[in-house]
């Protein structure tokens, strides 16, 4: 494939830029010159965009918006021309010149199925790639060659990465890599699991041990019990010996005391208490008599009780009433003066209101002349309502006048006329609907044009016979045509490939046969062969000579030499014959091989004939098939033709469908135009369907709007008029209501004035003044009444106090009768206070005497009681007198104490005897020796300790054995087993990962080695030639060692081989370029060429080396199209010099 032209329709800074790349076919070196910023890189991206699609986020949308980006090209391949365009959109981005979508598969096929990345790296080369390639060479011959073969340096990186990852996973003797660690954990888990397994035998063993230790513990426990019993018994006896001896002694002393009266325990205390109480009572009685006589004397000294004692001071309230009487005597004249003043004021206030009274009578008569509170309230209400009622009437009348005026104005307005809008509205709805259809109508028209063009194009492409062009009706087409054509093409391809294989095999067989024939000829051309007869003759002569020699007495020297000669000759002949038999065998083998080859060739030839016949038959069948459909399709192009034919039929059907739809829509649009014209009162003048429809609709819309606005105004006016009429009715009613209310008020007013005795002409303001006067009169009258009440009260109290005092004085103080009542009160108050103090002293002394007499009576009672107690005690002890009683009490106490000690000892002994009984213990104690008993107890104690130690040991053993047995119930072993599997899985996962990495590494290394072995020779040879040219003869040959994986070049100057790492970076880049070109040459030897895109490759080359490089590219350009993008004008000139005329072309970006 090659580009015939490249069109930067809208891309980056370019608009309609076109490069003619047709020169130099089938190859040609096109140097595309663009100084910096001229868009060199952009055009490179454009080429890639064309071939593989424009990047969705392309940065080349600065002049043209992203959706408008477009690149086009004319491409030729195997004599067929394709005109392609690449658009920036989501779907169907590849189209032909007419905009029909083109399958991406077609472009892929043209590009030899090379994906974008490979295209960029394999068929494109820039400085960066060159550098990377040069670096890859350092990785060894395999990597270098492989990198050149894959057109990228990734192999080296991938291989290094795989190696690194493998080493990180596992090292033979490593500890830290992940797999090594995981394996360590796995082994540890295995070891642990093994340790933790407890087989049944171990369990049984453990169980037996437990049983034994438990049995021993039981035995020891029995022994311990017996020992403890014995020890207990003896130790008890030993511990009770002291109590037993004390018991014996107590009983002896009790016997000595003998029998006697056992007094009560408290007898002594009771005696002492009774004696003390008797003594105390005697003293108290003496003291009482003396105190009583003193108190009685004091009481007599107070004298008889006074009559004042009966006066009720509380009821009299003498002090309080004395103060009130004194205050009233001062206030009374003041209050009387105030009352006179108020009466005068009343007389004065009454006069303006028509009330003329004297001060003496004013209070009694005024009451009846004042208006009642309800009349005053009513008058105030009527006064307040008058203004409101008059204002309401005023407002109603004003409003009525306003409304009458407005209605009069409205009556002058013109009523809007009614228009019929309906027809216009209906027409407009239709018109709008039709207007939206216009675009569709036009689209269909455009679509129809496109489809018609597509039909014409397809008809031209298919070279349809006349009768099939524009058929009157579309022929039904067999839809399986494409599938069948695909199958046929596949069959043809298979046959073709088989043919090629057969031809190659035939060539191989022929060359093999020629070689065999050559070798046979060589064998046949060998020297003349000795015969067996000749060998027999020589051998006979040898034997004769030997015979002669053996019969001779003295063999002559000559005979000996002759014998030797014949022997040698015979051997030589025999050898020759042996050799010859091998040569004959070889020749025979070759002849047989040639015969086999001949048979094979014949079979191949037959198969070839058959394949060719099949191809012809297939071609003819399909030619016939297509000719009946009216087209001539080239063999191998049937699918394309079939597809085109099917597409043609579909396009024709689409055309027909579109025409029909469009006609129906057109008729509808015409109808609508007429309807609109009618509604507007105009008739359309032309027949064009879509012409002016939009204008008609707009006109109708404007007219309809105008009519609707006027109609709205008319409706609003009517509504307002109705509203005002209704308001006038309401205003009239309000006016009537207000007038009625005022009339009612006026009647009530007259009634009121009448009731108040005011003239009918009295205004509300005047009546309000009168009411204020009445209110003031009423207030002053109230004050005068209050003063009259207070004066009467003072006088009443004074009279009552005087009468009470006179009564008291007559009874208790006749000396005060006749004196001023306030002076009497003062004197009585003093006398009453003094008599109170004397009476209180009298009460105190009487109480004291009563208490003293009670205490003396109590002392007498105690004295008697103590005497009786002492007599009873003497009687109880059987004593002759009180004096012997203490001795008897002492004996009784001793007897009681010894009895108690004996009882306590017996109780203790019984408790400790262990049920043996005190008598038995006493008997035992008497029978045993203390020392022996002590020794026996010690001995038993030691034995018990021994048994207990043994028991503890046995119990510890049993516990340990039980614990051991419990361990069998744990899940440790099972868990450990699970851990082994888990760790194993972990290790396996890493191991698998390692194995996958390692396998990938091995496969890649092997492939590189194999590639190097396969291509090292030829590639190295060609690369050496190119390197010689590129380095201007500095390095002339190239050695690729598959043994130690190195590449070396031979320096022309020194004749020495130079290892690659010792080359300069520039030379390494040249070497990589040489290898890449050699690899590409080899590639294009076997495959159809695809254009190369080179981007400023030789920037770092000097002029001579750049010329040399162009010379190399010039040779490659004979076969392969090369687009060389450069920003150096030097490159253009050097390319022209180095590349033959007719192969080198110059293009300037942005320069036309």
């Amino acid at each position: 494939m090659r580009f015939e032209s490249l069109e930067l329709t809208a891309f980056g800074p370019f608009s309609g830029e076109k490069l003619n790349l047709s020169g130099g076919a089938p190859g040609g070196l096109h140097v595309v010159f663009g100084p910096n910023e001229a868009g060199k890189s952009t055009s490179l991206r454009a080429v890639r965009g064309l071939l593989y699609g424009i990047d969705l986020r392309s940065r080349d949308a600065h002049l043209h918006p992203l959706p408008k980006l477009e690149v086009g090209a004319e491409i030729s391949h195997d004599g067929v021309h394709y005109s392609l365009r690449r658009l920036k959109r989501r779907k169907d981005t590849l189209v032909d010149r007419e905009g029909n979508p083109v399958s991406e598969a077609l472009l892929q096929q043209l590009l030899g199925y090379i994906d974008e990345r490979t295209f960029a790296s394999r068929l494109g080369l820039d400085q960066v790639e060159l550098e990377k390639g040069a670096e890859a060479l350092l990785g060894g011959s395999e990597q270098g060659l492989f990198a050149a073969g894959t057109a990228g340096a990734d192999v080296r990186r991938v291989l290094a990465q795989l190696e690194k990852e493998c080493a990180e996973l596992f090292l033979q003797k490593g500890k830290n890599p992940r797999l090594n660690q995981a394996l360590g954990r796995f082994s540890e888990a295995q070891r642990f699991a093994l340790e933790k397994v407890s087989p049944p035998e171990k369990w049984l063993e453990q169980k037996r041990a437990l049983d034994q230790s438990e049995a021993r513990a039981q035995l020891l426990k029995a022994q311990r019990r017996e020992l403890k019993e014995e020890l207990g018994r003896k130790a008890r006896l030993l511990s009770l010996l002291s109590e037993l001896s004390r018991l014996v002694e107590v009983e002896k002393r009790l016997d000595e005391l003998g029998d006697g009266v056992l007094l009560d325990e408290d007898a002594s205390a009771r005696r002492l208490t009774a004696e003390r109480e008797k003594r105390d009572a005697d003293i108290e009685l003496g003291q009482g008599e003396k105190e009583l006589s003193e108190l009685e004397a004091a009481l007599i000294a107070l004298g008889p009780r006074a009559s004042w004692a009966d006066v009720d001071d509380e009821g009299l309230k003498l002090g309080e009433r004395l103060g009130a009487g004194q205050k009233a005597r001062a206030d009374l004249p003041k209050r009387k003066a105030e009352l006179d003043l108020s009466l005068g004021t009343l007389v004065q206030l009454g006069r303006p209101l028509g009330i003329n009274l004297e001060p003496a009578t004013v209070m009694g008569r005024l009451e009846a002349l004042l208006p009642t509170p309800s009349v005053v309230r009513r008058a105030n209400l009527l006064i307040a309502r008058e203004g409101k009622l008059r204002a309401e009437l005023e407002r109603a009348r004003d409003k009525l006048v306003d409304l009458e005026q407005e209605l009069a104005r409205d009556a002058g307005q013109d009523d809007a006329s009614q228009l019929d809008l309906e027809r216009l509205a209906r027409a407009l709805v239709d018109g709008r609907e039709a207007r939206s259809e216009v675009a569709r109508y036009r689209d269909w028209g455009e679509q129809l044009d496109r489809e018609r063009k597509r039909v014409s194009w397809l008809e031209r492409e298919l070279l349809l016979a006349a009768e099939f062009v524009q058929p009157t009706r579309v022929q039904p087409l067999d839809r399986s045509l494409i599938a069948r054509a695909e199958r046929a093409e596949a069959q043809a391809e298979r046959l073709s490939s088989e043919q090629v294989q057969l031809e190659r095999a035939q060539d191989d067989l022929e060359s093999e046969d020629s070689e065999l024939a050559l070798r046979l000829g060589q064998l046949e051309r060998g020297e003349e062969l000795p015969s067996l007869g000749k060998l027999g003759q020589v051998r006979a002569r040898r034997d004769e000579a030997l015979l002669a020699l053996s019969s001779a007495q003295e063999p002559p020297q000559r005979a000996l030499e002759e014998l030797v000669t014949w022997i040698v000759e015979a051997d030589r002949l025999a050898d020759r014959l042996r050799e010859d038999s091998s040569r004959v065998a070889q020749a025979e083998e070759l002849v047989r091989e040639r015969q086999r080859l001949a048979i094979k060739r014949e079979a191949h030839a037959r198969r070839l004939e058959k394949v060719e016949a099949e191809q012809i038959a297939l071609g003819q069948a399909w030619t016939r098939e297509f000719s009946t459909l009216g087209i001539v399709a080239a063999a191998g192009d049937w699918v394309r033709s079939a597809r085109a034919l099917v597409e043609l039929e579909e396009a024709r059907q689409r055309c027909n469908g579109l025409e029909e739809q469009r006609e129906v829509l057109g008729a509808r649009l015409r109808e609508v135009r007429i309807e609109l014209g009618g509604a507007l009162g105009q008739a359309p003048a032309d027949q064009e369907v879509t012409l002016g429809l939009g204008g008609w609709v707009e006109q109708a819309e404007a007219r309809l709007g105008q009519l609707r606005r006027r109609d709205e105004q008319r409706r609003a006016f009517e509504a307002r008029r109705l509203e005002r009429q209704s308001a006038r009715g309401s205003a009239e009613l309000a006016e009537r209501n207000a007038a009625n209310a005022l009339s009612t008020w006026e009647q009530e007013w007259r009634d009121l004035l009448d009731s108040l005795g005011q003239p009918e002409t009295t205004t509300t303001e005047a009546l309000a003044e009168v009411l204020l006067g009445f209110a003031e009169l009423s207030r002053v009258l109230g004050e005068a009444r209050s003063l009259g009440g207070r004066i009467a009260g003072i006088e009443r109290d004074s009279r009552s106090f005087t009468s009470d005092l006179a009564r008291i004085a007559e009874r208790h103080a006749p000396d005060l009768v006749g004196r001023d009542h306030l002076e009497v009160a003062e004197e009585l108050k003093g006398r009453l206070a003094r008599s109170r103090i004397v009476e209180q002293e009298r009460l105190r002394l009487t109480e004291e005497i009563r208490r003293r007499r009670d205490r003396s009576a109590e002392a007498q009672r105690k004295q008697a009681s103590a005497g009786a107690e002492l007599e009873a005690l003497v009687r109880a002890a059987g004593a002759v007198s009180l004096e012997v009683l203490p001795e008897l009490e002492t004996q009784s106490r001793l007897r009681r104490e010894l009895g108690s000690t004996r009882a306590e000892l017996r109780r203790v002994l019984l408790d400790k005897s262990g049920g043996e009984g005190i008598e038995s213990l006493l008997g035992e104690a008497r029978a045993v020796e203390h020392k022996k008993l002590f020794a026996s107890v010690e001995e038993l104690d030691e034995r018990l300790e021994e048994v207990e130690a043994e028991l503890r040991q046995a119990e510890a053993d049993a516990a340990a054995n039980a614990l051991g047995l419990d361990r069998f119930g744990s899940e440790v072993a099972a868990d450990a087993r699970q851990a082994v599997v888990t760790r194993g899985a972990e290790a396996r996962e890493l191991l698998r990962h390692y194995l996958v990495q390692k396998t990938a590494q091995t496969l890649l290394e092997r492939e590189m080695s194999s590639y190097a072995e396969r291509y090292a020779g030829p590639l190295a040879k060609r690369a050496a030639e190119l390197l010689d040219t590129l380095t201007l003869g500095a390095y002339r040959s190239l050695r690729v060692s598959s043994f130690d994986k190195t590449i070396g070049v031979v320096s022309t100057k020194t004749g020495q081989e130079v290892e690659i790492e010792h080359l300069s970076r520039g030379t390494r880049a040249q070497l990589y370029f040489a290898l890449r070109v050699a690899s590409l040459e080899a590639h294009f030897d076997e495959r159809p060429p695809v254009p190369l895109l080179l981007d400023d490759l030789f920037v770092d080359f000097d002029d001579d080396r750049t010329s040399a490089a162009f010379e190399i590219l010039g040779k490659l350009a004979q076969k392969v199209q090369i687009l060389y993008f450069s920003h150096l004008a030097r490159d253009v000139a050097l390319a022209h010099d180095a590349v033959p005329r007719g192969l080198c072309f110059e293009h300037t970006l942005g320069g036309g």
Partner: protein
Amino acid sequence: MKIVHAADLHLDSPLRGLPAYEGAPVAEVRGATRRALVSLIDLCFEQEASLLLLAGDLYDGDFKDYSTALFLVEQLSRLADLGCRVVWLRGNHDAQSQITRHLRLPELSHELSTNEPETKVFEQLGVAVHGQGYVTRDLRENLALRYPQAHAGLFNIGLLHTALDGRQGHALYAPCSASELWARGYDYWALGHVHAREVIEGAAPLVFPGNLQGRHVKETGPKGATVLTLENGRLSAFEHHSVDVVRWAELEVDARAFVGFGDAVDAASRALDDAKNGADGRILACRIRFLGRTRAHAELGARQEELLAELRRSSIESGAYLERVQHKTEGELLLETLAARGDALAGLFQRTQQLLDDGEALEALKSALLEPLGSLSTELLREELADFRELVEEAQQLLEGRLLEPEAAD
């Protein structure tokens, strides 16, 4: 009346293939077979079962730890409170087990003879259980032929550890045919040995209840026991009850619509969540397998380790245990198309493809790989190299990823 039929307890058998990784529910998985047994006994209580039938393989034959037996005894002893009896026989694993030899099961348990078919009659229940255990592990004799005819008037159950006439993945021990079993005239055949639940309908149901707890990724789905309901001495129903604590699943994720790495993570995470939701609150142990021709093929190949780590994170969030991620996708770039380019890479993949079809070459490559790995555990190596072809395919995918889509690997 209820009878519970279980088999293949494989008590204390480990769950295989689950690697330890950070956050993995290792502790939850531990002791799964024990907890499944506890659930089985709980099931007997729930169902108020009168009889528990165990059709062999109580433990793994090669495991000798006696705590396994003690645990079994402890659990079966619980049934005394219920009055539920146990009838069991030895399977191929029990035959060689040292544990079985020393096992003393509780009073209400009865082991059927290994010398000849034995019948255990439960008059009160109206049930007769016929069966014979394995005397040796590799028992190839048709035991069923010697089983007695059914006892009239009783519900007859045949207890047998067998692979019938062959079941995939199971050795053909005690072979017999379904018709031979039916010929005995029993009402129900309680079988063991096959770890997947299977019911063969016929004159009487032949039932493999499957094992109690799946132990690896080939033992997926619900695992448990079969509960038989007898009414008036006749089988009215039998149904499966799950008792497993870890549920195994193989999740196949369709990768066809994937564009990149993120799609794989999303789709697999969704599949994990769905599967976890379907596991009834159990721990889900699963393998994820990506399938289909996809654009993301090379990227997935190049980022295998990263994807595994990502999915493990997802599995931890979902409460699942990820056993492994398998890549069975194909690239959109067909090898044929690649071959048409005719460059060195095309050669690499063409030759790898040829290698996959060449057994001898594969063996040679395997030997070459093994040579420097002498120090590694042969057991692990053997397991990993068992399917060497698959391993080479993975390597090829890795190379596709690294060489054709180097950006993905960066």
